[in-house]
């Protein structure tokens, strides 16, 4: 599956700082510990093409991962893979009821050309992110950027936006030199300079991306490896073979089928978190009726998906929101499970569609999932036409509203249950075209309370709403899977599958 871990375009996100600091169970994928050894080349296989260094154009984990190694964001994700940690911003603080965010920059932070990272650079970067047509809205609450001195600035927010810090840690919000260092945007993105642990040696979307160690990096001793070579490899066999033969050290976002065939100890598995979903276009007449959508939900064989398509790396869905998050709560009624009678009943009173088109990402797991869904819907008299597409193309079709059904994957980028919920709302309820004020008001209530019970109640209410209306259906909950050889240490993979190259070292 392509995990479109994303930067949510929340119009106004309220909530959540407390939980950001709460460290959950660590997801340390290191092979034992020991003193880090410097040197060597890290060969990584990425699951998708690299979309280039322009943050606003990125939609795939493969892109964020590489981009953040060169153009590092302000804030880092901690080594537990879940909390926020100081980065280029050595500290940050909300004031005035959450309407001001004061940021201090690390005094040692330099761009790879040696020039210091200044508050002006950050201001320029924020303006650039904000102007992006795809993700700009995430920074929409920033009204004014007040540069205090060379290393500190204050963001003036239109509303209390405590979610903003999480976006500042996201891989495609990299800090760039002011005015792109005097170059045009095009020139800059072709050969970017950032304050990250690596510099770009060469890159191509579908081939190799070669990154060299940045000797001026502000974090001491990092990065450990001299070079990172990221190669696009979509074929699961090739991934397995290259890991086994040692041609590759790590393989990102590996498929369950790959994980299942790897020898013991090669596959790292995070907590069950990624949530593949079946998105339904409610703007299409055929899917406008919630009963039809619910019928589809009851027709699907979730056991077949979890055990067959995901090779038991996953379990049947418990609700529409990704699991293993702070304040997560199940819906008050059990979530969809296979019940053909109920599906028939729902369809009987509705205008049932005869034929639907299903677009799915062209990987082995999604392909089997799509075929399961095709067979299941056939059982309730809906013929499904399958179209496989490259992950980015499938995402494109979905976000531009040009589809009936799409298989997609949803996940959080912070530890709080409201985070994926905000994403779902901000994307017009997961691209389905179904959006009500009700969801927004539930989320606003959620943000305004600090009582965990009340927060959980709000999540249940939201889960109920999306079970009843079924604009999309969660198909399973599944862990992020990473292939790692035993020579690789201290890879801190987040539950959504992204990690930093700079913490990694290889035993010689």
């Amino acid at each position, binding site marked *: 599956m392509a995990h479109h871990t994303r930067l949510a375009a929340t119009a106004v996100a309220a909530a959540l700082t407390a939980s950001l600091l709460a460290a959950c169970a660590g997801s340390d994928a290191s092979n034992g510990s020991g003193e880090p050894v410097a040197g060597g080349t890290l060969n990584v296989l990425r699951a998708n093409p690299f979309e280039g260094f322009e943050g606003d154009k990125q939609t795939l984990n493969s892109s964020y991962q590489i981009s953040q190694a060169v153009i590092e964001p302000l804030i880092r994700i901690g080594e537990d893979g879940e909390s926020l940690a100081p980065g280029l911003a050595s500290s940050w603080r909300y004031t005035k009821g959450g309407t001001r965010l004061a940021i201090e920059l690390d005094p040692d932070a330099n761009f790879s050309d040696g020039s210091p990272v200044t508050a002006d650079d950050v201001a320029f970067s924020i303006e650039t992110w904000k102007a992006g047509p795809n993700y700009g809205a995430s920074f929409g609450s920033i009204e004014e950027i007040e540069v205090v001195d060379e290393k500190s600035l204050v963001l003036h927010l239109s509303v209390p936006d405590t979610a903003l810090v999480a976006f500042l840690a996201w891989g495609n919000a990299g800090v760039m030199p002011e005015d792109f260092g005097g170059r045009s945007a095009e020139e800059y993105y072709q050969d970017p300079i950032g304050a990250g642990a690596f510099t770009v040696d060469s890159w191509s979307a579908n081939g190799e991306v070669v990154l060299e160690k940045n000797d001026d990096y502000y974090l001491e001793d990092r990065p450990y490896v001299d070079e990172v070579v990221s190669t696009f490899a979509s*074929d*699961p*066999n090739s991934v*397995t073979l290259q890991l086994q033969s040692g041609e590759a050290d790590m393989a990102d976002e590996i*498929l369950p*089928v*790959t994980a299942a*065939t790897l020898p013991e100890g090669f596959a790292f598995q995070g907590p069950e978190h990624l949530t593949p979903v079946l998105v339904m276009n409610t703007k299409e007449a055929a899917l406008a009726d919630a009963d039809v959508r619910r019928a589809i939900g009851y027709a699907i*064989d979730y*056991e*077949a998906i979890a*055990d*067959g*398509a995901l090779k038991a790396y996953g379990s049947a869905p418990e609700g529409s929101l990704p699991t293993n998050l702070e304040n997560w709560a199940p819906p008050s009624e059990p979530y969809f499970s296979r019940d053909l009678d109920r599906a028939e009943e729902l369809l009987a009173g509705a205008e049932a569609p005869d034929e639907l088109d299903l677009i799915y990402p*062209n990987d*082995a797991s999604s*392909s*089997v999932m799509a*075929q*399961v869904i*095709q*067979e299941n819907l056939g059982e309730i008299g809906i013929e499904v036409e*399958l*179209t*496989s597409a490259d992950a980015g193309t499938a995402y494109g079709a979905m976000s531009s509203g040009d589809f009936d059904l799409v298989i997609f994957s949803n996940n959080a980028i912070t530890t709080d249950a409201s985070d994926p919920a905000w994403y779902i709302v901000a994307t017009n309820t997961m691209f389905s075209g179904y959006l009500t004020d009700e969801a927004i008001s539930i989320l606003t209530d959620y943000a305004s309370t600090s009582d965990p019970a009340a927060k959980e109640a709000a999540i249940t209410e939201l889960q109920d709403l999306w079970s009843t209306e079924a604009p999309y259906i969660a198909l399973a909950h599944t862990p992020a899977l990473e292939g790692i050889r035993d020579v690789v240490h201290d890879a801190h993979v987040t539950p959504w599958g992204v990690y930093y190259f700079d913490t990694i070292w290889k035993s010689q």
Partner: protein
Amino acid sequence: MSIISSTASPLGAIAGATEPTRPRGRWSGRIKLVVGLLIVGTYVVLALLAPWLTSHDPTDQDILNALQPPSPEHPLGTDEAGRDELARLLYGARIDLPIAFLVTVLPCLLGTALGVVCGYLGGWFDAMVMRVSDLLQAFPTYILMIVLVFSLGHGVRSLLIAFTVVGWVVYARLVRTEVLRIREAGYITAAVTAGFRTPRIIVRHVLPNTLRQTLIYLTSDLVFAVTALAAFSFLGFGIQQPTPEWGAMTAAAQPYMTTNMSLTVLPGLVITVLALGFALLGDGLQDRRGAR
């Protein structure tokens, strides 16, 4: 125009390589024809009898019994969605054979028609068609086909268009040359003065003369079609699962190659043998022509 007719198409190269043979060639030609016919015939029979040869539906999933080894219930095991592999291979003949025929016959018909019209009319129409065919021949066949299928979207319709756009050229040239030859030879003038109508002249004089060569091209096109269809499915441009198409089956089974190798090997083997059958047919025809 160059005197050396280079052709971008592998078809031309295969069909063009005539095989001069001695009298004994007639025998080997006949053997090849017979074996080729036997192979292709077997596939046709298997395609027709598929429902009686297996009790499984080739698209019936049993996902929890995916990737099973051979058993009495599933003689060749099950695929990644728990479908019966034997049934899929058998029913595959019902997909691959008709499509292969369709994508070869259509360009042949179009090419023949264009060749006749060009030969007769001459003038600007002929010139235009020939320039277009020059252009098409300058393009690498497969690349042109990939771009066409990419532009037109996945599926049989796109494959059909792609094969037709690329494939008509050889037939058109063959028939056009023959028409010109006959016109010059005066047959036609004689026939026309004798009051024969044009369609009849074509049927009586032009087509019979080109038939054998057309047939040889056709069989080598079939070889190409069978392997190319599978290649397109392999590259992700062709027919998709769960349709039991051999190329798509090979491609879909690839992730499971280390654990279930037969799922990759068998459909490939089935394609190879069918292609061999067509190749023998074409070769046999060629030998027999040479023997005359």
